């Protein structure tokens, strides 16, 4: 039997997943003596048609990846940079040179006027090589200080499910609730909207997705959940 698990099966570290060269095995696995084993407490997705197996972790810290957009919190103001908590074992460094597209002259002790301790920012990981802390930038549009919104935190491994295939889940939430979502790959999401009830409902939805991320039929259930809750709110308090 080339594959030892079923679709959506929960696996623990050391569980055999598949034999090598029979299926394409991706995700949190390791190889030993021609067989793949799970590295984590995770859920397996098996696609027998495309002969692909993928092991996704159910929990875990965010490990920075260049190109990722993350939501960070400034924890330290330095002389030429800021230290930013990105919900990772590796704190991020935002150099002064990565704030403005054009060269600007800022007095060294004026950094806190741009970004101060406690500020929430949307940033992008420029580089990370384990030997040094990750470098981030806020130069691009849509990045920078987040001035308003509700911050929600979920396990980083659930973010793909919040976004959904081709963004289907996140589009649905945005449309149905008329909110904007700033999604960080590091598990942090900022919900921006004028209607307080809908913003809070969006937070509830995200938590529901986190809890049920490993189940099937989630998109439909979430749609129903929002519909039901909206009718409750719509009815007035």
């Amino acid at each position, binding site marked *: 039997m080339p594959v030892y698990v079923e679709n959506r099966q929960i696996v623990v570290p050391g569980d055999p997943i598949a034999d090598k060269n029979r299926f394409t095995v991706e995700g949190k696995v390791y190889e030993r003596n021609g067989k793949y084993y799970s590295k984590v407490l995770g859920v397996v997705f098996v696609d027998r048609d495309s002969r692909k197996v993928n092991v996704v972790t*159910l929990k875990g*810290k965010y490990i920075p990846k260049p190109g990722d957009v993350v939501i960070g919190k400034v924890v330290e103001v330095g002389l030429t940079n800021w230290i930013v908590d990105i919900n990772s074992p*590796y704190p991020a460094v935002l150099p002064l040179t990565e704030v403005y597209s054009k060269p600007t002259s800022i007095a060294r002790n004026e950094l806190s006027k741009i970004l101060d301790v406690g500020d929430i920012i949307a940033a992008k990981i420029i580089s990370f090589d384990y*030997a040094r802390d990750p470098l981030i930038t806020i130069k691009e549009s849509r990045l920078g200080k987040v001035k308003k919104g509700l911050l929600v935190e979920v396990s980083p491994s659930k973010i793909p499910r919040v976004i959904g295939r081709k963004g289907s889940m996140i589009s649905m939430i945005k449309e149905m609730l008329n909110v904007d979502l700033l999604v960080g790959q590091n598990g942090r999401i900022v919900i921006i909207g004028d209607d307080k009830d809908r913003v809070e409902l969006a937070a509830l939805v995200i938590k529901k997705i986190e809890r049920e991320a490993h189940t099937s039929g989630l998109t439909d259930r979430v749609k129903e959940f929002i519909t039901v809750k909206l009718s409750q709110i719509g009815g007035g308090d």
Partner: protein
Amino acid sequence: MKGNIKLIDENGKRVDGRYPNEMRRLRIEAGVLKNADGSALVELGNNKILVAVYGPHEAIPKYVAEPDRAVIRCRYSMAPFSVDERKSPNPSRREIELSMVIRQALEPAVFLNEYPRTMIDVFIEVLEADGGTRTASITAAAVALADAGIAMRDLVSAIAIGKVDGRLVVDLNGIEDQYGEGDMPIAMMPQLNYVTLFQADGVFTPQEIEEAFRMVSDPIKKVYREQKKALKKKYEEVVEEVEKNE
């Protein structure tokens, strides 16, 4: 250590009614703490052991960090009220040694090089002790590490073999540990079949060492099954709930 207590009676039963190859009742719960990244509660007989895993996180102090891997900081501690005579909260030499051997029992299972320059904390608190706390601690710690989403080659499952009234028995309880002739705690990575903890006190013949490894095989498998069950439980319950409502 030796006493005049009869530890195995004429029917071959031990002081708590068990047969030589019987384990005590084992109950494992994963994800019991909100604050910890991973956690587990293990009840083995009267033992109650709580483990919290924090990490991987930035190494504290920074100079203990290793450039190419994570460092595990393990603390085994017994609560003052966990034993008959109150135990001072200060770390004893025994707790320091156990903190180290438990850490060394878990390290082979963790993919430490996936988290360079970080630290993984394993905090073990023995809330009630009744023989076999180090094996129960390892069992709990492995669950807590997996619960935290930390990459591992395998779980680590542990149980102690002992010698009472000249016979080898599985899973010594407190009385057997105190009055018996030997205690041999063993931890293994059950799927990979590697031994990560192996100690003994008391006197064993060379053949008894071999016999001990034969005896330990089934109990280790049993511990492993319970660990797996505990880890999967939370997620499988969600699936059940979801399917029930459809």
